[in-house]
């Protein structure tokens, strides 16, 4: 149904369309995204070698399809998984980032889900950050001496926590970008984090169930991709961080099971989220030209050029040399 389709998009509320972010903000977020994806590309290439293309490609298609697997919450609303944390827990942080980057790029291009200029921010929020949480927080907690733990309760707790946290992180980052686009932080953060504290519960439950399913049926897959062991001190520190963050957000997490109410809340957020002034670089002018339109245009163009240059240089540095073909 069309309204369900709309409701789902609004409920998730994380694919920022074009026009909603300040242009400089949108461009700025391309920078960390390009760096992370560049590093991830190299890492994946080294660790997976020639399996990288078929594995990552099919896994990206898998995340796409997995996002279709929804479950009814209430009142016609349904929850589904974002998948970043799951991908990183199972495949590792770098592979998770690559997979999510492809998913978000294809969603923007093929289905106009999320903007093109805003894609840097979208990839960072839903791909890089979620994979970092799954891969660098949950995975170390799930492996002991290089092999995957078998304690089901522990696995369920950690993966559910990571799933929830990944959604919260994406929501927090999205809020930050909106606030950087001059939205009132006092409204954006509570609304966004409040809604996603609930949505994150679905993510957490699905992530946990999916990982437990793998532990039961194909432990070899998890084993194959398990990272080397981590020191217990590091595990303890990460555990403490998770506990602290969870405690901080716990009040927000008291679930409100009425789906319709949540949509209403969400729509409310988006209405407020769009309360952004759309001036181009309001304070950016070039001194010797004074506050003329020409000055503003030049300032903008220079900004763009610098940004593109930076991205280009970093991408060039990160790109491994093209293979010599005999």
């Amino acid at each position, binding site marked *: 149904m069309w309204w369900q389709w709309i409701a789902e998009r609004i409920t998730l509320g994380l694919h920022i369309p074009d026009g909603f972010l300040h242009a400089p903000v949108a461009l700025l977020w391309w920078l960390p995204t390009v760096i992370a994806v560049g590093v991830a590309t190299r890492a994946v290439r080294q660790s997976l070698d020639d399996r990288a293309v078929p594995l990552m490609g099919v896994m990206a*298609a898998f995340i796409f399809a997995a996002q279709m697997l929804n479950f009814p919450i209430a009142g016609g609303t349904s929850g589904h998984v974002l998948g970043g944390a799951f991908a990183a827990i199972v495949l590792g942080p770098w592979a998770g980032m690559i997979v999510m980057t*492809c998913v978000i790029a294809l969603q923007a291009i093929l289905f106009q889900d999320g903007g093109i200029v805003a894609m840097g921010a979208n990839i960072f929020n839903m791909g890089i950050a979620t994979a970092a949480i799954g891969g660098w927080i949950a995975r170390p907690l799930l492996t002991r001496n290089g092999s995957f733990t078998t304690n089901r309760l522990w696995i369920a707790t950690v993966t559910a926590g990571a799933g929830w946290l990944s959604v919260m992180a994406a929501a927090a980052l999205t809020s930050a970008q909106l606030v950087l686009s001059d939205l009132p932080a006092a409204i954006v953060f509570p609304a966004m984090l409040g809604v996603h504290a609930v949505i994150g519960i679905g993510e957490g439950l699905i992530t946990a169930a999916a990982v437990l399913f793998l532990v039961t049926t194909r432990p070899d897959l998890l084993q194959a991709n398990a990272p080397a062991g981590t020191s217990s001190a590091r595990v303890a520190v990460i555990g403490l961080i998770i506990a602290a963050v969870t405690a901080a957000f716990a009040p927000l997490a008291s679930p409100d099971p009425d789906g319709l109410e949540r949509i209403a809340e969400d729509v409310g957020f988006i209405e407020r989220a769009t309360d952004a002034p759309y001036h181009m670089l309001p304070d950016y002018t070039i001194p010797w030209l004074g506050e003329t339109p020409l000055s503003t245009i030049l300032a903008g163009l220079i900004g763009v050029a610098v940004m593109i240059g930076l991205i280009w240089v970093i991408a060039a540095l990160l790109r491994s040399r093209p293979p010599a073909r005999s």
Partner: protein
Amino acid sequence: MADESLADRALAPASGIAVYDGRVTTWLALGYIFTLAWLPAGAWDALIMAALILWFVIGCGRIGLRLIWRRSLVAWPFALAALTLAIARPGEPIAQFTIGGQAFTVTDAGIVATATVMIKSWLSVQAVMALIATTHFSELLTALAALRLPPLLVMILGMAYRYLFILQDEALRMLRARDSRSAALPNRRAGRNLRWRATITGRMVGTLFVRAYERSERIYAAMLARGYDGQPLTTPPPSLRRIDYVLLIGGSAACIGLIIVAYT
């Protein structure tokens, strides 16, 4: 998928624009969207020109402006939310109303901001749609490669696109199977609880993952059988023709023109 068939257009572009190089159409579409992002609120002349340029191109390409308009409405839930900008921005009050005891004021600046966001967002979506309706997905990949995207990433994107529809169909069939066993008896509450339903969904995600993983292993074997050794396959694309350069320069000039119109 609401507009799967449009995504499918990327498979069989049949339009006038398709005679141009896919790199040119891709770059121009990206440039156009970036230009839109820089237009300030209330730059009506620039926005109208931008719209006319886009529709002219769509018209020339015989893509079907109607189709694009109809499909582009899918992006409107977000754009409609911009309506609230009308009451959120300080400015000359135009109208007032109260909902639930709270007073809202519609301002002139608010209306301007709302309209700008809606138009920008709507035009951006149309530009992407025009792009995928005219440019074969493989050409899009070539264009991205020429934009210095790592070849490995380009290959992964191509592979993801190839298996997208296959895995979506698989997911759809699983959903059907689950739904057809989601039954209710009279006088009993169906569906147990939220946690159980989420768990079932999680297992479906796991099942799909295993199948996708195994498929990737078979594909890997197929690639090896054809000589693959892990190096991304890079073929130099054909060089741009004169007509492509003309289009590229003309398009870029139009984008710069829009910016100048908007800020003068």
